[in-house]
């Protein structure tokens, strides 16, 4: 660090003190060539980045934030997307217009980048060690063994356990969080002046996100790297950045000190964006749905287990079992929203599959008085339960018109004639806030949020008693997410539908649910009303999950959560062995928590 600055004046200091500026973007324009001429992706974007500071570029999908980062790296997809104006300067070097050979020597050495998808960002056929070493040797004339020593040091620095072993492992042998640590190690091993982190934690579980964010902050403090943090998550912005640029449709909407922007957003879009962020504690003001315990539950699960066999050996004997869901019991009452929350691999989606008979299970699942078995279910039962999935584009047949998609359940169940089905489809479109004259369009003509509305309309076509929403809002931008959640709440109020809401997002769950079950490794560790679970979390895992959620409040600085040590628990057990069964005990008024873990 050449100069000491106060964080609150970092903004002005960076502009005034040009020696501290490592990266300057001036009037950047990026365009894509399409059939209808040039379309602008980023227009007239200017900002500076000072040594050691973190600048967040926040915005929703299509805001141009990722394109900006690729433009800085000189990695825009050729030949269609090009920088059409402005200058990007790294120190005294103008990056725009730099020949590829010189740009290459800057990439990875002076500017490094980490990406959103740790699962696909590492080459599957090369070992972690060789991918790290080549990053070093691409820029510095060091021997193989010297590179290896530095790679190992970098792995230690990102706090990866057993770094020597990791060097020889392949990416698929590591978890998502571990792979992202490898990416960070790879990006920081040459001590770049600028690190661009494009949604670095979006694909990670919330507790892993927490650890990776802490790591990034610690490393920045240690190495003095300037970070450009691209994110859609205002919670991450509040926790990580000193300054923020809010972008929308390729333009900078607002910029300034994070604290100021969060406290006094001047632009209407910023205000809307901040309002749409689901906040922990916001749901507390809303009363839970009236307890209707006397009514017959819509769904009842008793001691439900789902296990998959792992075969090995000469004869393909079953050697291990994956205990995906282990002795889970709960019921869902008419008109309530029951949330299953947990991190990836905890078995929450498997429960949904078992409930509609898509995977075989042990134990008892009773839905609207129908005993679910493996295999094909009775028509009446299939009408009563409908599903909404995470990715609406994948859930809608791209070659079918929306009208046919929404009416398809009616066609399958032979309800009404063509005219009646069409009429029903029109009603459903209005119900989910779309227009009936959009029925003749195809799914690709809609936005992500609209597509999810179409999926909801389709799920409602048969007037189900239970809708299973499996991460139904996770792929949506926050503002759209808020709208879809409001829609679900409205529909529930008007039609008394019960919703099983499966999510990894604690803040969303806290906003929509009446009752909550927290799952860990296939078992429920805590269950109760929203007030009970969020107001008085009793299980350590629940507390860990709640603490890990980044809050959109820059003034709130929490202590980093304790790092987990030792082996990550696994749901795979040898035949004849199983996970230790967690006994749920009632701590009063139906608040259940796993005993022994507290």
């Amino acid at each position, binding site marked *: 660090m050449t100069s000491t600055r106060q964080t609150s004046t970092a903004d002005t200091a960076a502009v005034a003190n040009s020696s501290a500026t490592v990266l300057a973007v001036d009037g950047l324009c990026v365009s894509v060539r399409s059939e209808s001429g040039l379309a602008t992706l980023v227009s007239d974007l200017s900002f500076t980045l000072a040594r050691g500071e973190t600048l967040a570029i926040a915005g929703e999908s299509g805001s141009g934030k990722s394109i900006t980062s690729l433009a800085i790296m000189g990695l825009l997809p050729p030949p269609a997307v090009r920088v059409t104006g402005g200058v990007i300067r790294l120190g005294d070097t103008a990056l725009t217009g730099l020949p590829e050979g010189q740009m*290459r020597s800057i990439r990875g050495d002076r500017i490094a980048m980490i990406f959103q998808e740790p699962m696909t960002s590492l080459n599957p056929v090369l070992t972690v060690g060789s991918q790290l070493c080549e990053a070093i040797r691409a820029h510095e004339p060091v021997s193989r063994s010297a590179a290896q020593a530095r790679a190992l040091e970098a792995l230690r620095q990102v706090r990866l356990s057993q770094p020597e072993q990791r060097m020889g492992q392949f990416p698929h042998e590591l978890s998502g969080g571990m792979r992202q640590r490898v990416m960070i190690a790879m990006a920081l091993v040459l001590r770049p002046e600028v690190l661009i982190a494009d949604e670095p934690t979006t694909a990670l579980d919330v507790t892993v996100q927490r650890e990776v964010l802490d790591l990034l902050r610690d490393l920045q403090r240690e190495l003095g790297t300037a970070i450009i943090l691209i994110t859609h998550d205002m919670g991450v912005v509040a926790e990580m950045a000193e300054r923020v640029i809010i972008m929308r449709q390729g333009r900078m909407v607002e910029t300034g000190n994070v604290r100021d922007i969060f406290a006094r957003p001047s632009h209407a879009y910023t205000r809307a964006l901040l309002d749409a962020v689901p906040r922990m504690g916001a749901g507390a003001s809303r009363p839970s749905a009236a307890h209707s315990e006397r009514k017959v539950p819509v769904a009842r699960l008793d001691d439900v287990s789902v296990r998959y066999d792992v075969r090995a050996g000469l004869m393909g004997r079953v050697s291990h079992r994956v205990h995906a869901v282990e002795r889970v019991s709960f019921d869902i009452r008419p008109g309530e929203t029951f949330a299953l929350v947990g991190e990836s691999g905890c078995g929450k989606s498997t429960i949904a599959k078992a409930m509609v008979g898509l995977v075989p299970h042990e134990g008892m699942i009773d839905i609207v008085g129908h005993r679910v078995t493996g295999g094909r279910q009775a028509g009446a039962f299939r009408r009563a339960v409908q599903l909404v999935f995470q990715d609406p584009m994948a859930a809608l047949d791209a070659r079918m018109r929306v009208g046919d998609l929404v009416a398809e359940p009616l066609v399958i169940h032979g309800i009404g004639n063509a005219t009646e089905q069409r009429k029903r489809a029109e009603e459903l479109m209005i119900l989910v806030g779309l227009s009936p004259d959009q029925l003749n369009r195809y799914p690709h003509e809609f936005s992500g949020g609209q597509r999810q509305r179409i999926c909801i309309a389709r799920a409602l076509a048969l007037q189900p008693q239970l809708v299973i929403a499996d991460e139904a809002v996770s792929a949506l931008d926050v503002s759209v997410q808020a709208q879809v959640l409001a829609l679900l709440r409205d529909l529930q109020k008007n039609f008394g539908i019960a919703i099983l809401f499966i999510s990894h997002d604690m803040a969303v769950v806290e906003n929509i649910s009446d009752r909550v079950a927290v799952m860990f490794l296939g078992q429920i560790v805590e269950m109760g009303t929203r007030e009970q679970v969020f107001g008085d979390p009793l299980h350590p895992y629940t507390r860990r999950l709640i603490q890990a959620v980044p809050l959109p409040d820059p003034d709130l600085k929490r202590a980093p959560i304790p790092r987990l040590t030792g082996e990550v628990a696994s749901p795979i057990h040898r035949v004849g062995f199983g996970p230790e069964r967690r006994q749920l005990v009632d701590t009063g008024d139906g608040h259940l928590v796993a005993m022994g873990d507290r």
Partner: protein
Amino acid sequence: MAGYLLRRLVQSALILLGVSFITYFLLFILPADPVRQIAGRAATAETVANIREQLGLDQPFLVQYSRYLAGLFQGDLGRSYLQRTEVSTLIGARLPATLQLMAAGIATELVLGLSMGVAAALTRGKALDNSLMITSFVTVSAPQFVVSLLLLYVFAVKLGWFPIGGYGTFAHIVLPALTLGLLGSGWYSRMMRSSMVEVLRTDYIRTARAKGLTRARVILRHALPNAVLPVIAMIGIDIGIFMGGIVVVESVFGWPGIGQLAWQAIQRVDIPIIMGVTLVSAAAIVIGNLLADLIAPFIDPRIKLR
């Protein structure tokens, strides 16, 4: 691993058994009569009946087949009707020539196909890409007897660079291998191109570029091993198609391999030879597939054989 190998070998044996049954059955219901071929047109009805009895061809299908199978299990492929020689001897004498031609042909199609595919993928949408894809389309569509005759006419007859036919020196193998390789290169270049285009779009290629690696290194070390994986699986399957081409090419170029043997045997309904060549070809295909599957884990560590 040992378990996997054992299971695959048992599977392969069952496949060969099935092939032998189907081929034998097809030859049995064939209207052509091998006895007539042996006895000649002038033979009396008595001679014909005698020969038929001698060869056991008067027996019902299942008896004939089980006799053949019994011999097969003892490693006996039977005797040729016309050449009065053990089929295994005939095939054994000609197999090395065919294997040489196969190796040369496969090497040609892979070298041509993969390099054309990679070049096309890297110049996607440009003139080179278009001309390479048109070339591959032509080589895939052109019948082999046409290609072989064309090559013969230009390079052997007109230019005199290579001998017109026969076997022995390196010059002899060039034209037949090129004929075989051209067809395959069309297939492989198209497959390699689409596989490479897909890999070049992946996140890990972007990561490799973000590290500041040279273009050559990104392509050779990061993209190529991933792109070549689906192609390797194809090589195993491709050997089957290849065997069909070998029959044609060996006949045109007078290459003394088992393709030529099969060609002659089919014309004379020499059932033991047809059976023998079919089984050897089937074994080659099965082994080729097995090898392709065994190589895959060395390139992609995610593949586990079990």
